[in-house]
């Protein structure tokens, strides 16, 4: 029990080593820094996948460990993206505007510059005024702080309201869906101040950077890998100690934890907020690689996919979430990108672009029914972890509690 953190969690070391190896491999094969076997667009796909893995780790913390099936974490992910996107767009537009105005005979006044930026950014929604939410957009430091602060604050307020009223189980899931839907609908409006359904675009171009996308994509790839590594380490540390015991207790039997003298609501709120902040960081790294963010990104379905990834990867184990997010999102790219070969059946041709979702749905049902430990459960075959024989009984009376088939001795 008193051995070091790494000794107690060998999987953390293995995970970090694999991640480092993967990062090194991609760097060597990239166009920007290596032999060019991996195209820049695929580097971006891999970088984005790492961000999705990070948000999956956050999802596993809240669902797999604390039993709270939040179906709204992509709202936090998207907000993080919006926050960094505002600075990227503002700063790049400013440089263009300053350049353009410098052509004139008179040096531009600061007000002219700001008006010019406003015209450029908001012309598309028929406006030129800066809304209040852009107040800090000229400062990278402040917008970076908002990447964490805005999702964190939303989670804090939402969580406080929901947990205080002891909303649990499926009702909480529905509430989180409503939250992300409401946010998406609000952002769709032109007067929300974030360019409505156009969203923020051109995010892949970093202001004042002349390096090519081949190089920039690798910067983001490294950043994403670093974030995933640190996020994984943080999550593993959080669940390794007594805090982990308490939240797993909440997952399996909330009432018991309460009668032990722990304030269940405070724990849920702390964890919910922490995972929202992690999701925000993941989003802030994802969208500059995607190049564009719009409200469709935080539609309710996105958060449901997140839960599907974690379920397929195996909830309640952090590497399971990473594996699930990586495998499913890469497969999804492959199938929907038209690269998967169609299957001609004679009377009908299976086009994967259409049938991928059906396949995903079936595998989700299959995993929950027959292999609740998910892909991560394959690790048990090597490490010889056994399942307990509980005669079909789950590990607790609560809805989020671990099922017999998910547990190990």
């Amino acid at each position, binding site marked *: 029990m008193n051995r070091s953190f790494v000794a107690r969690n060998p999987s953390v070391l293995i995970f970090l080593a694999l991640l480092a190896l993967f990062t090194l491999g991609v760097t060597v094969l990239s166009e920007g820094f290596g032999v060019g076997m991996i195209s820049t667009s695929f580097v971006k796909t891999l970088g984005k996948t790492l961000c999705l893995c990070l948000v999956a780790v956050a999802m596993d913390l809240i669902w797999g460990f604390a039993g709270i099936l939040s179906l709204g974490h992509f709202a936090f992910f998207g907000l993080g993206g919006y926050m960094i996107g505002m600075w990227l767009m503002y700063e790049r537009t400013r440089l263009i505007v300053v350049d353009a105005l410098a052509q004139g005979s008179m040096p531009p006044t600061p007000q002219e510059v700001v008006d010019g930026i406003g015209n450029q950014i908001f012309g598309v929604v028929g406006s030129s005024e800066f809304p209040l939410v852009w107040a800090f957009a000229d400062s990278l430091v402040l917008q970076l702080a908002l990447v964490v602060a805005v999702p964190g604050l939303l989670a804090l307020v939402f969580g406080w309201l929901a947990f205080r009223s002891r909303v649990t189980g499926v009702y909480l899931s529905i509430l989180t869906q409503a939250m992300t839907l409401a946010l998406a609908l609000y952002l769709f409006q032109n007067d929300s101040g974030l360019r409505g359904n156009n969203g923020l675009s051109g995010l892949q171009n970093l202001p004042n950077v002349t390096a090519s996308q081949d190089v920039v994509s690798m910067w983001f790839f490294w950043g994403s890998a670093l974030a995933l590594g640190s996020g994984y380490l943080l999550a593993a540390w959080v669940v390794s*100690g007594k805090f982990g015991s308490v939240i797993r207790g909440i997952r*399996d039997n909330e009432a018991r934890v309460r*009668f*032990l003298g*722990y*304030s269940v609501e405070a724990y849920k709120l702390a964890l919910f907020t922490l995972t929202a902040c992690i999701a925000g960081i993941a989003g802030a790294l994802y969208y500059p690689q995607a190049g564009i963010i719009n409200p469709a990104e935080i539609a309710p379905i996105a958060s449901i996919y997140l839960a599907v990834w974690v379920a397929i990867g195996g909830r309640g184990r952090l590497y399971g979430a990473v594996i699930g997010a990586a495998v499913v999102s890469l497969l999804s790219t492959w199938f929907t990108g038209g690269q998967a070969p169609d299957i001609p059946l004679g009377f009908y041709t299976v086009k994967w672009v259409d049938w991928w979702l059906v396949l995903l749905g079936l595998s989700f049902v299959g995993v929950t029914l027959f292999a609740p430990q998910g892909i991560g459960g394959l690790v048990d075959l090597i490490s010889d972890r056994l399942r307990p024989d509980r005669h079909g009984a789950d*590990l607790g009376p609560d809805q989020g509690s671990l099922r017999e088939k998910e*547990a190990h001795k």
Partner: protein
Amino acid sequence: MSTLLEVSGVSVSFDGFRAINNLSFRIADAEMRAVIGPNGAGKTTFMDIVTGKTKPDEGRVLWGEKSVSLLKMSEAKIAQAGVGRKFQKPTVFEDQSVQENLLMALKKPRGWFPVLSYRPSEEDLAKVATLADDIGLGDALLRKSGELSHGQKQWLEIGILLAQEPRLLLVDEPAAGMTPEEREKTTDILVEAAKTRAVVVVEHDMEFVRRLNCKVTVLHEGSVLAEGSLDHVTSNQNVIDVYLGR
């Protein structure tokens, strides 16, 4: 001896059904008390009220030397104040080891922030080991509690309660589903615990109550029907009519 818990004039109804009707109850600092009564007498509701799970419609629940009202406190706060509760069905954290279960219950700061950085000291581990020996689980420290037998889980839950160092222990049918030997051991653990704190045992089994050898409170239809030694209450005509006579 000073009064530790005083419940007076408490009533609560669910959808018009009066589960507790003007109930009064008091227990001193280091006292063992058995509460008996037929099904639906309000035994479990009584525990729910004391632990803060159910809020009564009227009445007072006062705690400790300073006579603090428990009615405005949350379950967690009441537990921190020193009320420990054992459920009828053994409820331990089945996915965690005996050691983790006991460490979680040890009397330590309960806020999420101190807990985040908490790592068990040698002293804590020693305390847990001693406790595990006391409840007969010394060899099972690193086993998952889900693997334990029914009786062992009951003991573990009592161990969890003792680790909290509560001043009042509420125990709901501790001997249910136990073998005779297990019952005997359970009695020993409870009697030992009652030397230093108040213990309230809800029980159906008269043999078990007799072995506890303590004052008995008989509940019926949500209020106290009789109180005194077991021989005293069992000779009470009212008690015989509603409970023992059946």
